[in-house]
């Protein structure tokens, strides 16, 4: 656990020092909202369409961020530094996934209100709690898969391409669940809380892939 905290601390400190990842994710999201506004040619969107737009934007911002997760490790000898320490290798997985989760939360604090402002129309208000629940579960999925796929891709030659082409199909079930769960929350009239069935599927997905990643991560690090 202390190793996980050490790595997490180091990663957050590095991000605060260099700002390489978070601003890019935020700018990307905001630009994407503008693009969607023009591409869809509507004053406001709601319901399933809004849920889809939000989900897709978060997905691509997450993939952007995930692609940078292990770059410093790879280029500045960080893997060796970690592997030389007498610690559980999974600490790296846990730390990186947590860092990714933190980045996503910070991103969403900015992007979701922006989404509400630019695309949604009526204010989110009381429905926010439901949306937060959906996004939180989605963030876990994005963090776990993002970390796993990034760790696989970092040692390949075409690392920026491999990451998304593997990550997207893997994330599809989680994305379907996210978009379906968020749809009723974002409806203009008679907004409702997210359906339990989809939250359950999302939670199941999170648990299964978290366990799977935990089981295989060691094999990605060893040589």
């Amino acid at each position: 656990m202390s190793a996980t905290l050490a790595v997490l601390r180091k990663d957050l400190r590095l991000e605060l020092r260099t700002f390489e990842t978070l601003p890019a994710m935020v700018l990307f999201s905001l630009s994407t909202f503008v693009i969607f506004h023009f591409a869809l040619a509507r004053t406001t969107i709601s319901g399933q369409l809004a849920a889809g737009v939000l989900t897709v934007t978060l997905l691509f911002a997450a993939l952007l961020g995930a692609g940078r997760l292990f770059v410093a490790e790879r280029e500045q000898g960080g893997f060796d530094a970690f592997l030389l320490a007498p610690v559980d290798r999974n600490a790296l997985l846990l730390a990186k996934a947590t860092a990714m989760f933190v980045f996503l939360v910070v991103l969403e604090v900015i992007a979701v209100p922006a989404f509400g402002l630019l695309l949604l129309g009526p204010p989110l208000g009381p429905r926010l709690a439901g949306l937060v629940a959906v996004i939180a579960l989605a963030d876990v999925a994005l963090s776990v898969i993002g970390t796993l796929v990034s760790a696989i891709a970092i040692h390949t030659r075409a690392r920026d391409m491999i990451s998304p082409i593997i990550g997207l199909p893997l994330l599809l079930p989680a994305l379907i669940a996210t978009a379906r769960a968020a749809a009723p929350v974002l409806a203009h009239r008679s907004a409702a809380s997210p359906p339990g069935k989809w939250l359950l599927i999302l939670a199941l997905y999170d648990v299964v892939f978290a366990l799977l990643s935990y089981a295989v991560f060691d094999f990605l690090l060893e040589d």
Partner: protein
Amino acid sequence: MISSGRGLRALSLATIAMITLALALVFFYAPLDANQGFIQKIFYLHVPLAITALCGFVFGGLLAIGHLRSGDRKWDMRSYVAIHMALIFGVGGLITGSIWAKASWGHWWVWSDPTLVSFLIVMLLFATYQPLRFSIEDPERQARYASVFAIVAGAFVPLNFIAVRAAQGVVHPRVLTLTGSKLPGSMGLTFAISLLAIALLYVTLWRYEMAAKNARIQLRRLRRAALGEEAAPGVARSAAPS
């Protein structure tokens, strides 16, 4: 033992016999569908191809577990061939599925069908298997990372089907349920034989490709031992285990 050519002839004969039997049943025994006509018979090709492909992917994942646990590269070879074969069968399944969709519902593709959509997602995932392998140059790492991928992707197959099924209504005719086949007798028998034939074909081709690859590897090793390094220079970057 699996990788040598032993037993291959018997297996091939059994496969050919099964395929012949299946064809005979499809054309002469199974009833003609009232609505869809003759083209419906592609169902006997499509569903077995799809089922075999999916099982092949999961099989590849299980073999990959064997590789990671034992560290023996033979298992990686088995896993690679299993997934490779399953991809080919899967493409066959997608094409025949599209033909059948056109015949049944008038469209080459329907989004409302969860089975078709799940299958597409799985194929999209496994299509990245070979590019992934090809982009890792160190052969040890390539094999290890491919195995990690195969395990995660293999576990993904059932999960994906659950999620997509929950998402959409059911348009795809559910022919196999937990309580047994819903097909009338003659169709059921034909289907079972077709499935068996395609599965046997998969296993036979799997063993053939492994035997061929192993023969090539052994030949290269012998040439190196006998004639020195220059006689058989190292394999250039490749996606296949060597």
